[in-house]
């Protein structure tokens, strides 16, 4: 029973959504459940946040090596959560000064904004920027793998890179008219509109088929591993 009911819920919910897609009166249900999901995901933060605290509190109390970092995480988490939920240091909205809670939680100048601006944002941007190094090392690795697939990948990447920067026209602009089509920027546009389009098209069709098949298997209960064992 503990497994049958969820299976039935998934099946009914899924097929209702499929049928609703064809009925003008119910076609907007898709948008409604997306909002519901957002609410549900926000409620589920309690589980995630609780787990985060639990993991790091346990590390701290067990004094596992590096437990000091767990203390830092807990302190950062609790401070950010309290000043954010409490709107600490946030002025009311100028339009509604008599409502103390009406200000924006991320108002400029508030402690929450400060932590976002000077801690969150730089960290986020720096991690993202590390990709520049990883792109280089990945290209280097592909370069060493001497099979035809890797060569195709790297050669295409190189041509596109040339075509999208000033280096392309500078290096290949002198090509005579007969092989004009091989100039880096022309080749780039050809590669993008022909090969890239063809490959992506087939991949997208495959993804759509895969999505449909996985969804159907879940709705029919063929695939049910996500529901757990049915035990407590």
């Amino acid at each position, binding site marked *: 029973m503990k497994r049958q009911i969820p299976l039935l819920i998934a099946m009914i919910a899924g097929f209702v959504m*499929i049928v609703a*897609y*064809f*009925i*003008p*009166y119910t*076609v907007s249900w898709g948008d409604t459940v*997306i909002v519901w*999901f957002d609410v549900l*995901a926000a409620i*589920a*933060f309690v*589980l*995630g*946040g609780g*787990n*985060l605290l639990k993991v790091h509190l*346990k590390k701290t109390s067990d004094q596992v090596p590096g437990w000091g970092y767990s203390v830092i995480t807990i302190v950062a988490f609790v401070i950010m959560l309290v000043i954010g939920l409490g709107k600490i240091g946030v002025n009311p909205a100028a339009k509604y000064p008599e409502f103390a809670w009406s200000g924006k939680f991320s108002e400029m100048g508030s402690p929450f904004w400060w932590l976002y601006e000077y801690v*969150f944002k730089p*960290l*986020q941007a720096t*991690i*993202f920027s*590390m*990709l520049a190094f*990883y792109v280089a*090392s*990945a*290209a280097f*690795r*592909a370069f060493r793998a001497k099979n035809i697939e*890797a060569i195709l*990948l790297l050669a295409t*990447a190189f041509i596109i890179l040339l075509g999208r920067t000033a280096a392309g026209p500078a290096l290949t602009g002198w090509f005579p008219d007969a092989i004009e089509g091989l100039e880096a920027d022309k080749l780039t546009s050809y590669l993008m509109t022909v090969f890239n389009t063809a490959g*992506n098209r087939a*991949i*997208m*069709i*495959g*993804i759509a*088929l*895969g*999505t*449909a*098949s*996985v*969804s*159907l*298997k*879940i709705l*029919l209960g*063929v*695939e049910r*591993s*996500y*529901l*757990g*064992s*049915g*035990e407590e």
Partner: protein
Amino acid sequence: MNRFLIVSLTASAIALAGPPQQTAIAQEAKPAPPSNLTATDHPWDNGEVLDLAWDAPAGGNADGEYFILRTVAKVGDQIVTHDFKIIDSAPGDATSIGVEVKHHLKRAAVRQLGDRIDFEAILATGEYKFTVGYLFQIVSVNADGVRSSPAQTAEIAYATMQPFDLGRLALLCVTIILCGAVIFWIRRARSGKPIKVRKIAGLEAVDEAVGRATEMGRPILYVPGIQDINEIQTIASMTILSHVSKTAAEYDAKVEVPTSKSLVMTTARETVQAAFLAAGRPDAYNKDLIYYVTDEQFGYVAYLQGMMVREKPAACFYMGAFFAESLILAETGNSIGAIQIAGTAMPAQLPFFVAACDYTLIGEEFFAASAYLSGSPEELGSLKGQDVGKVFVALVLIIGVLMATAGSMLDSPAIKEAVEYLKNTLLT
């Protein structure tokens, strides 16, 4: 209600859009106007289209075109002033067109109603949905750009909604074909007929990766992507996690699943617990190995790359929806010498996984992984069903391309029209 400016329909003088000088010049060579303009609700739709039809002017208008003008004439029981605006055009040889009408008012029409804010609030309640009535005009425009006097619809037209959207009939048929094929092959497999599928290298390597982790006494890292459980790739990832953790339970290896979403954490726990039970090792299940890190994409990545360098997992699985972090993960995994198997349906991230991982499941292969790993006949049957879908695609593409080529070579309008019908009616 009094705040709405009420103007009688009949009393309104209708001025055509367009600069006055042009009208003055046009006085002499004005083309004849079309006649009998009617607007009727488009049948079997979601109530957003009105069909216009008219008779061509005497002498025809084949060289010119038509301009369609529209105004909101009535909202609920409120009558509104006319403010005809050009909304569409039709070729000179046409005598009908479908025009889209959304159930909200254009700014100009609302302003005429006096109090814009309040009116929008009322509209937002949905009270006036499908009660917005429209009037249309049509003018013929000759090859010199001179406009005729307008012909107008006699009655206010309303768009209404029907219980089925006929425009989606072709979609319904395609859905039935695709799903039917999958169901047919699942049933066939259930009846015991043998199912043969080709090998996929990345999936053959799963056992090897888990085995290696066991030998080395190091953990397995499983990253289910950064999207929530409402993303089909995350759901597919859970089904793969089930098999990976079952194999790990059999080998007695440790699987660590850090997640970036709370709901993914709870679902992954259910999945892994069930897998350990199925492997006969329920006691070995440790829910603390499946934990939440942070919802922030790069915070999650910062944790993962640090963790990978410190714990040095022997095998890394990246299965799910990934964005820019794909390469950070795959390159870090590479630097610690882990066996890496990735699978995603994000076309933009596939290049990075292909370049940096040992095996990559591309798009549809990723969705097929769970069927392969389970090895159950009904799951494998579903893959055959997907192949039927691909045959369908290939057939439609080949027929469509051949038709389009024939239409282009023979310059045949009939074939071209058939191709247009295929593309714009059947395949939308």
